[in-house]
């Protein structure tokens, strides 16, 4: 009996943590998204009207969600966010994979230093680093100066305030989140598998495609999710580097919340994003894990 209680107590903290820092805030956001806007403070009405004569009365509404569906702006912003985050994720993968591979195959003595270099940017404020990119990307910025000097271009390029600038900023900011999980899977890979592949007549590049790449799939998935999910909802980078016409869901959310003071619609945007984006990913992941368990279980019996 005490054993079971002990196990329960040990298992409790993570759940408490989740409840306190994820479920509770989410419940509040969900509640606001179902409320009617109001001019007061806070700028929404309570779900239950305590002042009603016939006891407490339900005053919740789905109007805010209806607005998301009716106004094409929101859908366009969702799709554009997914597009930009998708491209940034791909760019992170293309840059991060070789980097993680090189670190994982570097002499053991170097690896920690190299990993530290990957994490080094975190020592400077994220905001300052994004501002620095303005200096690099602007028309008279460092990048244009370099390209002009090299003679690659004759006229400065308009990079800042375009989607490209947002993608560059995101790729830069989220790269470590791609490199670290990739490194973790590549580092623990059994190198004798590559020797076995070579022994069986497989050339190194083919062995990479047939052995290393499939075995690093968990790292690719983890890294991509770690980059893609926050990138979709990103606000700071599109706000600072993107143009006024860079439509992203994070910016919409911000302007609903602060400019329009429409907390209910802003909350609805947030909830919809979670449901539309995170839920499918989790379902797919669960299905994958389930399928693997099944395959494993069948053989073990």
């Amino acid at each position, binding site marked *: 009996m005490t054993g079971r209680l002990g196990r329960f107590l040990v298992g409790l903290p993570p759940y408490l943590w989740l409840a306190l820092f994820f479920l509770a805030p989410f419940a509040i956001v969900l509640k606001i998204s179902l409320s009617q806007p109001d001019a007061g403070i806070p700028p929404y009405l309570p779900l239950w009207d305590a002042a009603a004569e016939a006891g407490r009365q339900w005053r919740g509404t789905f109007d805010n969600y209806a607005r998301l569906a009716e106004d094409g702006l929101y859908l366009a912003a969702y799709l554009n966010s997914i597009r930009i985050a998708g491209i940034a994720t791909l760019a992170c993968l293309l840059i991060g994979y070789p980097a993680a591979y090189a670190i994982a195959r570097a002499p053991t003595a170097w690896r920690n230093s190299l990993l530290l270099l990957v994490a080094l940017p975190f020592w400077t404020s994220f905001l300052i680093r994004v501002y620095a990119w303005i200096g690099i990307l602007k028309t008279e910025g460092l990048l244009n100066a370099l390209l002009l000097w090299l003679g690659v271009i004759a006229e400065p390029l308009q990079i800042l305030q375009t989607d490209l600038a947002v993608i560059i900023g995101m790729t830069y900011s989220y790269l470590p989140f791609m490199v670290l999980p990739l490194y973790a899977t590549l580092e623990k890979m*059994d190198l*004798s*598998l590559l*020797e*076995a*592949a*070579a*022994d*069986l*007549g*497989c*050339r190194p590049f*083919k062995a990479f495609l*047939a*052995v290393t790449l*499939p*075995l690093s799939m968990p790292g690719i998935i983890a890294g991509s999710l770690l980059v893609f999910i926050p990138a979709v909802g990103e606000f700071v980078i599109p706000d600072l580097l993107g143009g006024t016409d860079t439509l992203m869901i994070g910016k919409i959310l911000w302007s609903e919340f602060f400019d329009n003071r429409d907390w209910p619609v802003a909350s609805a945007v947030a909830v919809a994003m979670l449901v539309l984006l995170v839920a499918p990913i989790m379902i797919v992941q669960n299905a994958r894990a389930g399928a693997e368990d099944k*395959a*494993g279980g*069948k*053989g*073990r019996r």
Partner: protein
Amino acid sequence: MTVAPAPWTDPASVPLIRFDGVSKRFGDVVAVDRVDLAIHKGEFFSLLGASGCGKTTLLRMLAGFEAPSDGRILIDGADVTAVPPYERPVNMMFQSYALFPHMTVAGNIAFGLKQDGLARPVIAAKVKAVLDLVQMGKFADRKPHQLSGGQRQRVALARCLAKEPKVLLLDEPLGALDKKLRQQTQLELVNIQDRVGVTFVMVTHDQEEAMTMSSRIGVMNAGRIQQVGTPVEIYEYPQSRYVADFIGAANMFEGTVSSASSAGVVVACPELAHDLTTAHADPLAGGHPVTVMVRPEKMSIGRDAPADGFNWARGTVADIAYLGDVSIYHVRLDSGRKVEALQANLRHTERHKLTWDDPVFLSWHPADALVLTR
């Protein structure tokens, strides 16, 4: 019935594998030191030696995973020293098996065949054939993590055999198996080798395994090959103290040559009261320091002095290890040193059963004593 002479005794026979002064250094460590070795077609050759003596390194150089620091390696007459592993006609069975975890058993075996660009039906037929050979046909669709250690080992073997290599390299192939399965698999491996006729080169540090499986054994020590020979040669005629001591148990008597003739060398042994006669015909100069080696099972133990012509030593029984079929007697010589004698327990009760502290004579025939100069 005439038995064909062993290829290694035939000077006209061209070896399949030749190491030509091969050394391998890792920084300051000399892992393999000037090895010359010839292995012939169809052999089951074992590399035997203590941990860290360079067996794996030698094998990995043959597979192409390590480049020799010095020397050349030839396979079938061709210099392969600079040939990458994926172009060598050898296959290695790894100690860890190195099965691809994301592929099924059949996928693992087909992998090597696909590299050769074979047609699908041919691959399927070959996969089936080797799986049947190692009796793993039922497990074709399993993933490696769904197999037992012994089953994985069979798949690893099948994966190599499917490629029909000229040489199959095995690095401690049975290391992960328990004793019973190990013995069973040893026989199976030898059977399979008989059937497919591939040349096997196996690394092991289990001397019993090397003795039962091999056509010849190369004993290694500190990067050098100490001796190459058939199991009988290695056991009965070791050429150095190291090999004598490493393979089986050995009683050693230090001494100097007092006379040498065609009948044998006579050795003066300060530890014993008399000279030891041997049948070892070697023109050694008088005074040459030598070691006389006698295997425990070649020593008789008894209360009575031996017949003339036998060598003998006197002592008391210090310890008896009863192993059922045999007993090992540890006898303390008058010099204080202990030697071992092994006797078969032929009868249930022996009238003159020996026990602790009994004074005994150890005796052995001159032909059973070996003179070692190294």
